[in-house]
């Protein structure tokens, strides 16, 4: 459903992506792992139209969306949960959730989705009047995921959802990712936590300084010697 072909991105003089190609198939969880600065976040930002692409193309549901603006991409159901949570700190939890549905007009469906995300994250419902900036880190991450779900993603891209969270909450986030996927949402996951990510992934890509070096099914990557050394710390 998402197909990236030979994507290049420059930041000034820095050639951050040097020809990335990857694809996400329907119903799957795909993960993208790699060291700090490899260009994972840049890949997702380029897909969303947040950073300009030097060359290459992005196909989504068979259509070329390389030149689309972010709003139209979001409207099409391609949604990014950005790195570092990025909730709106002055807005309440409920307002943050409402903003997730900004491009939608179907009031009744929005109300239903709101109920659904509150079921997924009961802690958010208890805190819906609280300013998002006063939530704990884990709660903010839940809010960031909940907010993304409010956009009715067909493909949800998550940039390091487990960053800085306690192991128990990480487990919780990962089980929710699986749950979301079962509910019919395709997932493209970026993780430092390579083991946890590959365990729930159908397919994975490994990225190094702007290029994809290895790819394979989650199971294969988990037993790949190179990956075990470099990313699983074994």
């Amino acid at each position, binding site marked *: 459903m998402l197909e990236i072909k030979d994507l290049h991105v420059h930041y000034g003089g820095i050639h951050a992506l040097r020809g990335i190609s990857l694809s996400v198939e329907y119903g799957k969880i795909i993960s993208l792992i790699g060291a700090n600065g490899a260009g994972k976040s840049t890949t997702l930002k380029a897909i969303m139209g*947040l950073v300009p692409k030097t060359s290459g193309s992005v196909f989504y549901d068979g259509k070329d969306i390389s030149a689309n603006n*972010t*709003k139209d991409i979001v409207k099409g159901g391609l949604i990014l949960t950005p790195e570092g949570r990025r909730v*709106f700190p*002055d*807005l309440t939890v409920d307002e943050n959730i*409402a*903003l997730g549905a900004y*491009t939608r007009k179907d009031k009744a469906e929005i109300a239903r989705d709101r109920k659904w995300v509150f079921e997924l994250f009961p802690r958010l419902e208890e805190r819906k009047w609280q300013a998002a900036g006063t939530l704990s880190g884990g709660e903010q991450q839940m809010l960031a995921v909940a907010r993304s779900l409010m956009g009715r993603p067909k493909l949800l891209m998550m940039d390091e959802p487990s960053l800085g969270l306690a192991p128990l909450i990480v487990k919780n986030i990962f089980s929710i990712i699986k749950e979301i996927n079962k509910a019919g949402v395709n997932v493209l996951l970026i993780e430092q936590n390579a083991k946890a990510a590959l365990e729930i992934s159908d397919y994975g890509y490994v990225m190094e300084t702007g290029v994809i070096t290895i790819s394979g099914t989650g199971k294969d990557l988990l037993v790949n010697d190179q990956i075990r050394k470099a990313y699983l710390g074994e």
Partner: protein
Amino acid sequence: MTTTAFLQYCLAGISIGGIYALIAIGYTMVYGILRLINFAHGDIFMMAAYFMIFAMVDFMIPWYISASIVIISTILLGLLIEKLAYSPLRSSPRMSIMISAIGVSFLLQNLATYLFSALPKQYPAIPVLNKTLTFGEVSTSVVTFITPIITIGALIILMAIIKKTKIGMAMRAVSKDFQTAKLMGIEINTVISVTFIIGCFLAALGSMLYFTPRPSVFPLAGSLPGLKCFVAAVFGGIGSIPGAVLGGFLIGLCETFIKAAGYSEFSDVFTFILLIAVLMFRPTGLFGETLAEKV
């Protein structure tokens, strides 16, 4: 000072303060969204006065229609400035867009001089606003009396828009984080345009209320009030709307009482002493948040 005189000065101070507040809101909102001090805002306010002269004196259109024409043309002017002078610099360093704003300010002043000459022009009288009201001993013109009411009314509506509507929520989101706001599907340019529309609407309103009791308009007539309103916004904590309103009222009142005490020449200086004092002792202003560079 007698009680009557005191009340009279209070009313005058609140009234001019209300006008400052209306203009200060424009500075503070644009800053809140774009982190830009729109130096041209005072000159937009001045242009609004010329639009009124144009409509009422040159075309002899009745005042209530002229007022709507003034509001619409001021908004269009603001949007045009945003599109031509600010929007192309969206991803440039912030200093470039500030310099562009200073350029627009000079451009408007010189354009007005070129089009309307540097000689002061008489501002048309709006009959209903010039009537005199008397409350016991205190007498005042309608415009002085209704200005604070209009200000408060505008403020209430504005706060409702910002707190309760979808676009208001988008404005608050954009003012915090451009990139994440985009990820919600918010169109930044729409939000910026709405901000300029609101700011220019209030500047047009303020312009009519400000110039009605004053004899004339000239091309530099916007710069001093503009500066004072900027100070009002800084005093209240730039980015904060209630802060800007409070700052506007405070400067209006202080200035009026300083004049009343016989130090007219000093009244404008006061504003700038206030600016320096705020910047020295409380740079974030009354309601300002600690300034974080936006990513």
